[in-house]
């Protein structure tokens, strides 16, 4: 009887340890990395809240759910995938650029690094941002890329983390009626204890074009 139960236990153990082979796949280990660019230069974007997404599709399967790829605030994205042929496309209406749903075919074997060219409505150049106890001053150049675009608003933003955008901030001031070109703004931050108490402080400016769902940003400036 004892031998029987020993054999039985052994059998159970063997089944437990060996059972999981047939229906499991290895994790994907091919790496797709890329950058969203304009004329080869990476764009500064909102990198939090899954705000900017690309979609990867693969043909030949029953289901057509896209794989969402989230873009960071420096315009860089990456995804771990299986080898194969993918179609990369921006999400409809998403991003501070002209909506373009042309697909880009990506052949992934081991790894791939790609550049996804888009046409942003605006770019922010030459940003100079300074913060005193009572005021935030920003001067920068809004470069018009799409001639027909108009500006919805300019945002001056301070954050106590290095994630700085329209949602992640301790201070945000919206300014409307702005034209492209060299501009300079000052915002009153006196009395904002979130700002004065922040151990680290990062600043950024953003420009939201009319009709776009996301703003284009400047690079991030560390204030303290």
């Amino acid at each position, binding site marked *: 009887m004892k031998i029987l139960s020993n054999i039985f236990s052994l059998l159970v153990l063997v089944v437990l340890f060996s059972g999981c082979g047939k229906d499991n796949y290895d994790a994907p280990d091919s790496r797709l990395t890329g950058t969203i660019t304009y004329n080869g230069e990476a764009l500064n974007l909102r990198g939090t809240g899954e705000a900017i997404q690309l979609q990867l599709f693969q043909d030949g399967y*029953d289901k057509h759910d896209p794989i969402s790829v989230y873009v960071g605030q420096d315009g860089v994205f990456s995804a771990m995938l299986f080898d194969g042929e993918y179609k990369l496309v921006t*999400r409809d*209406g998403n991003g501070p650029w002209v909506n373009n749903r042309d697909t880009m075919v990506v052949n992934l074997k081991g790894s791939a690094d790609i550049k996804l060219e888009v046409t942003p409505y605006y770019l922010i150049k030459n940003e100079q941002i300074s913060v005193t106890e009572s005021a935030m001053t920003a001067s920068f150049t809004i470069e018009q890329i799409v001639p027909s675009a108009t500006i919805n608003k300019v945002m001056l933003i301070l954050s106590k983390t290095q994630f700085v955008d*329209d*949602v992640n*901030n301790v201070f*945000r001031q*919206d300014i409307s009626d702005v034209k492209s070109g060299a501009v300079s703004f000052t915002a009153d931050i006196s009395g904002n204890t979130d700002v004065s108490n922040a151990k680290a402080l990062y600043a950024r400016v953003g420009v939201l074009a009319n009709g776009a*769902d996301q703003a284009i940003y400047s690079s991030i400036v560390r204030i303290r």
Partner: protein
Amino acid sequence: MKKRYMLVALTSLVLSMTACNGFLDREPDKIMTDEQIFNDPVMIKSVLANYYGRVTWGQHVADWGSFAIIDDAAKCDGGPDQRSTFEDDLWRVYDYTLVRNINQFLKGLRETTALTDAEKAPLEGEARFLRAWYYFNMCRGLGGMPIVGDDIFDYTPGMDVTSMQYPRSTEAEMYDYIISECQAIAGMMSTNKQTNSARANKWAAKMLEARAALYAGSIANYNNKMTTPIKTDGGEVGIPADKAEGYYKIALAAAEDVIQNSPYELQDKRPDDKGLNFYQAVSVKENNTEVIWARDYKYPGQTHGFTNFNAPKSHAEDIDNSWLGVVLNLVEQFEEIDTDTPGEGSKIETMENGSYKFYDSADAPFKNRDPRLWGTVIYPNATLKSSPVILQAGQLNKVDGKWQILTGDLDSKDAQGNIITALNGPKESNEQYINKTGFYIRKFIDETPSAGTRGRGSEMWMPRFRMAEAYMIAAEASFELSNGKALDYINAVRNRAGVKPLKTVTFDNIVHENRVEFAFEDHRYWDMKRWRLADKIWNGNNNDELARHRRLWPYLVVAPGDPNDGKWVFVEDYLFMSPNARYFRMQNYYNFLDLGWINNNPKLVKNPYQ
């Protein structure tokens, strides 16, 4: 051993021979056949009642958390509510099972001989009304979706499913379908009032027609005024601008029909107490002349916990209380009665000449405002069940010639017996059962004894259509059509409310009037969407007073010898319970389609931004 086997074998044999005595061949008593149902008028009514229980969507009283999603109230229960954005499937409605069931019902009803044609007509009208109401609720979230008409699909394994895969209709077609259904059934339905407005009659159908046409008209109008209108190539989302006028005319005609011919009226039974009058018009069923169609609740069985969860702590009947706190954003929308600028809200002044502004009583900043404020919100010292609701965050003391704030625990008193912090708060805390905004909700709070207990629950209804909306639809449609009648209609609502009539009507007046009249009635979110204002107001900016929840806390001045002793001051601040401003993104104008639906039906196209 062998004997036992024989015995078992014999028993099995006997059992297998005798088992078929019909014991297992009973008719199921939980599954009814079509004949059983449609040959019995009572059963037919029961089936219809089932559909009434399946058509509650959006913000509603049985889901009070839904009221904290927009800018009318905040969650006060426990720790902060981190919400900023709105989900892609928020209040999304997609229930073709319901459509199929209603279509089965219609087929059975049309074929039965148990009822006369005259008896069938109102039942068919109600079923089709509920189906149109479903399509409307789906359309305002998703845009145009498949219209299946009266078709009933039956699937047998192996059949070709592509014939069942209907493409999406355009948004305009969907509203047209809803409008035409309402027009077709209006003549079939009863013109009389219904008990507790629980069942739909002709006037509910007219109201749905008016509201659907108004929504369609405003999307045709305001969507195309955006820099980049939200639309799909096939028109599943977005309505051409030239259709706006036609829709506004339909809305106006249907609303005027209700105003002129229906047995309902703007309830105005207590001209001496306009605040109570407004509360009774919306929140009391007995002798109500205002409400046309409501989700009714009845004890036992059909009750909800709204009163239990949201009553003030001092008036609670059970453990739960204080879940929702109305925010200052809504309170200051109620205009002052003797204002020079009727039809717009005004801020409550808290400072004067660089110091606190002193008020004579805790309710002084509120009691001379639009009486609908009393009927919607419980403000400090307002009466509930004939006793005042004390809201006091703390005291304002004078120490060494300087004003200083003193706060304590809930229900704390100083040595002289003055309240420091009231039992109700407001108080900054992560605990539950404490008010944190300075205001409670009154609309839909049930004053019936034991309505606020866990065991019984409340029978409070939730109106879906009421007379004031007929006037507001007529006012808005008239305004958009510039036919000169808008002023009369909006002033009818304002007169009933007890505020000054307007001399001219602007678009902002209409937005404002809708907000204060229909707060907590599942209007505002959809209104902001159809006017394409949502992304402008809820812009996600934490420094924007309109986008972020705010509180207003009352303090009692305790400074013996000072002329301001015994007066009240108020302190305004952003609400710590809602640290993030509301952020309505462009993609929120339409829900996303579930990818599972698209996998099942590849003819469905995605919505913008998806």
